[in-house]
């Protein structure tokens, strides 16, 4: 075999290291979806009537929606009746302290490298852990409470802060938005809720770790973050799942709301199980993420590193409503083996003097297919607004594909849009240069890919950036262009 082929082969044989299953007593609902499923979930969570009503509206909308057809891959058959919509570790009560948590569960989190026990915790990260459908624990709660910051599971928020939830839930992603958002509305099990009061800068990164463990379950978490006037929060999201031969559906909804002068930074490192190299198994990641810059001078920034999932279908978007509001989208998406990613962003410039910046770096290897799909829209009132988009694709090997579908729309003549896209491969001369300086090809590739993705990785908080960098190198280990 040629050297290149050996390396590509190594790459192809790279295993998913988070593929273990945790043996825990689970409370799992019957598979299938109907009105009773929705009632069952709502009842399990002791929800008030208004919440059940809203779920029902979501369910009705779900029945009327069609599967989207516009993406750059054939939508797989999805049997919504074969999924169990609720799975939770059996112990029901919220744990008073970590000692009460099932030790098996704790060991899982340790394997995942999640800083759950506070001693081991990386300084300054408060973590909410969602295990299958239920939020297990939230750390640092007391400290945050003192600042008036609410950081809890969304179920808890429904009980404790109904006025906030009722006011904002579904206000950015309506229950009719798309088939997956409607489904999520009907059956979402848990997720995180954050409220930052006026003028407060959240002193630590808030973080949620999602884990799908049970078989034949879907994960439908719902995240709602509200940053009140002149506040700031940085939020991190990570996720893993066991290796299974069947595809599992992950259909989350994330809503961000930034009031006047507020800033939300939302970072994701998505490492769901991508399936094996023949494309068997893996997570279907169909996620709706949207933020609204409601107030003047507000800012929302999405950063994502997408390395996992069999299919990724997500377009974190921003509604730039307030004048002088700003939106950012930084993305690295890697597809290897048979992975498919159709991802990008939508920037809706509604207010005047709004700004947006999009940096997207796609990396395709193996037989992976990577599509950037983006919309930049300047509305009639978006005077003096600006967008800059840089959208690059890197191909490694000649069996993969890179695709770019930017939609650019302007209805305001004082607005400016700039879009650039390039496609390239890792230059032999670059690798040779590094070889000549004593760096082997594998390391050279890692260096080059990390350099290529640097603009995005730089946006991640420190702890995440290191993890993301490792993940990138691992995913692409041994590939030579």
């Amino acid at each position, binding site marked *: 075999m040629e050297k290149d082929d050996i390396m590509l082969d190594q790459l192809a044989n790279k295993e998913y290291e988070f593929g273990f299953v945790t043996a825990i007593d689970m409370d799992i609902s019957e598979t299938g979806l109907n009105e009773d499923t929705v009632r069952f979930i709502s009842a399990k969570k002791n929800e008030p009537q208004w919440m059940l009503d809203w779920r029902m509206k979501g369910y009705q909308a779900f029945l009327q929606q069609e599967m989207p057809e*516009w993406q750059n891959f054939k939508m797989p058959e999805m049997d919504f009746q074969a999924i169990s919509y609720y799975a939770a570790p059996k112990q029901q009560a919220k744990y008073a302290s970590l000692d009460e948590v099932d030790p098996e569960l704790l060991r899982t989190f340790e394997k995942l490298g999640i800083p759950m026990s506070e001693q081991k915790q990386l300084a300054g990260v408060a973590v909410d852990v969602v295990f299958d459908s239920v939020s297990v624990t939230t750390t640092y709660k007391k400290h945050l409470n003192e600042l008036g910051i609410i950081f809890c599971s969304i179920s808890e928020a429904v009980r404790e802060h109904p006025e906030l939830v009722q006011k904002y839930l579904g206000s950015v992603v309506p229950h009719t938005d798309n088939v997956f958002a409607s489904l999520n509305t009907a059956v979402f099990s848990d997720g995180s809720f954050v409220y930052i009061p006026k003028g407060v800068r959240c002193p630590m990164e808030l973080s949620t770790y999602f884990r799908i463990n049970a078989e034949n379950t879907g994960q439908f978490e719902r995240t709602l973050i509200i940053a009140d006037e002149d506040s700031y929060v940085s939020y991190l999201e990570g996720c893993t799942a066991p290796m299974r031969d069947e595809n599992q559906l992950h259909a989350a909804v994330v809503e961000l709301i930034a009031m006047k002068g507020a800033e939300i930074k939302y970072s994701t490192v998505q490492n769901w199980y991508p399936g094996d190299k023949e494309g068997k198994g893996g997570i279907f990641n169909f996620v709706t993420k949207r933020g609204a810059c409601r107030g003047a001078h507000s800012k929302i920034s999405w950063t994502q590193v997408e390395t996992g999932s069999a299919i990724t279908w997500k377009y974190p978007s921003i509604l730039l409503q307030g004048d002088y509001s700003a939106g950012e989208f930084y993305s690295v998406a890697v597809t290897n083996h048979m992975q498919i990613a159709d991802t990008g962003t939508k920037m809706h410039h509604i207010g005047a003097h709004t700004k947006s910046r999009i940096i997207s770096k796609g990396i395709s290897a193996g037989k992976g297919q990577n599509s950037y799909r983006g919309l930049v829209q*300047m509305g009639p009132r978006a005077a003096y607004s600006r967008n800059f988009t840089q959208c690059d*694709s890197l*191909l*490694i*090997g*000649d*069996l*993969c*594909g*890179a*695709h*770019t*579908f*930017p*939609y*650019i*729309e*302007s*209805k*305001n*003549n*004082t*607005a*400016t*849009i*700039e*879009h*650039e*896209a*390039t*496609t*390239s*491969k890792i230059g032999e001369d670059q690798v040779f240069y590094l070889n000549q300086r004593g760096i082997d090809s594998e390391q050279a590739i890692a260096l080059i890919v990390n350099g290529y993705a640097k603009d995005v990785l730089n946006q991640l908080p420190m702890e995440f950036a290191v993890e993301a960098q490792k993940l990138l190198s691992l995913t692409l280990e041994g590939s030579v*262009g």
Partner: protein
Amino acid sequence: MDNKMKKLSKSPLYQQLVDAYNQRNSDGNATQEREQAFTAFVEKGFPSNRDEDWKFTNLAPFLADEYSFDLQQPAAAVLENAVQHARIPGLESYVLVLVNGKINGSLSILPDASCFKLKQLSEVSDLNYFNTYKSEHVGAGNRMLALNTALFNEGYLLEVPDSVIWDKPLHIIQFFAGEQNLFIQNRNVLVMGRFAGLEVIESVISLQNGHKLFVNNVTQVRVAEQASLIQYQIQHNQAEDRLVNFLEVVQEKISRYDHFSFNLPGAELIRNNLEIVLNGSATETHLMGLYLVGDHQLTDNHTAIHHLFPNCDSNEIYKGVLLGKGKAVFNGKVFVERPAQKTNAFQQNNNLLLSDKAQVFAKPQLEIFADDVKCSHGCTVGQFDPESLFYLRSRGIGEDSARKLLVEAFMFDVTQRITNEPVKEYVQSLIYEKMENSFADTNTSVYG
């Protein structure tokens, strides 16, 4: 909602076309190709905004008018006059005049008979003749193309034999005339033999006297090995004209094709589909477009380049200036298939919005399946750079002149590539004339 959409796409014209097809093929002798195309059209009707490729171009208002299919031969004097008027000042060229798709020999000026083969398409006995030049890579799902295939009745077949290089450009002038609103579908075939060379300038002119003209035209071009073709498409039409064009170009190895598209204010609707198939290695392709879109006009350019073989270069620059309530759509697709290694594909689309009522919808699109390629696209939408405007004004140049200079500069990337001087001057003078009128109109509203 579904039914409503269907009604829109099935206007009275739809029924007229169905009847026309059935009447014409009542003896059941339609070719299989026409049958298939007709079925494709009948099932879904005219394209609507629900079709991705027609998302921003709504044909419905243009299809709602009443149209006739009856053609009318204009008076000889009218024609002669029209030909004189259509010629490009200072351009020494041959002329091919077509009236309602029929070749007019007496008004045409052509070179020695050994230099070409020219036929009326309806007289080409083997209808499959031109189908051999058709590529399976293009036009899938395009129902305007299907409609043309089902029902086209006239057009020309022009062949330039191997190794023949014309000494002068050819100006093809197509006239259309009827006594009522006219819906017309023609098809033309242009074949460049091996090592052949030709430069073509195309004009489409309505002699409709205030009646509406809807042209759904298809042209198939084949550029054989080592041949070269330069094609200028000048769309300088009247408000009543609606032009839907489908141009398919198949290039064989080491051939070169240059396309210039000039869309000037006038026609309410211009939709150009340009599909290039690079069916051999080491080809060179240049697509250059200028669209100047005036008040209440819609100009839509859809281009696609299919790279199928290695070592091909394609270079595309489309530039648009929008005035008044003008609306422009640009969609540029570049496909690089797996075998097409060492492809260089460059695409650029820039838009200048000179009015606060104008709109632009752009979608530059890359689909790459080969790794050793250099592909890039850039797209911008915006205004003049205020710093440039200030610099020019600080040298004593008035605002209007400064803006004209900057529009000229904006278009320079394309105009500098026009090698034919009379054509360049003609197009530039048309642009200035249009700009002049438009600035006079919009001055206060935009810059006041």
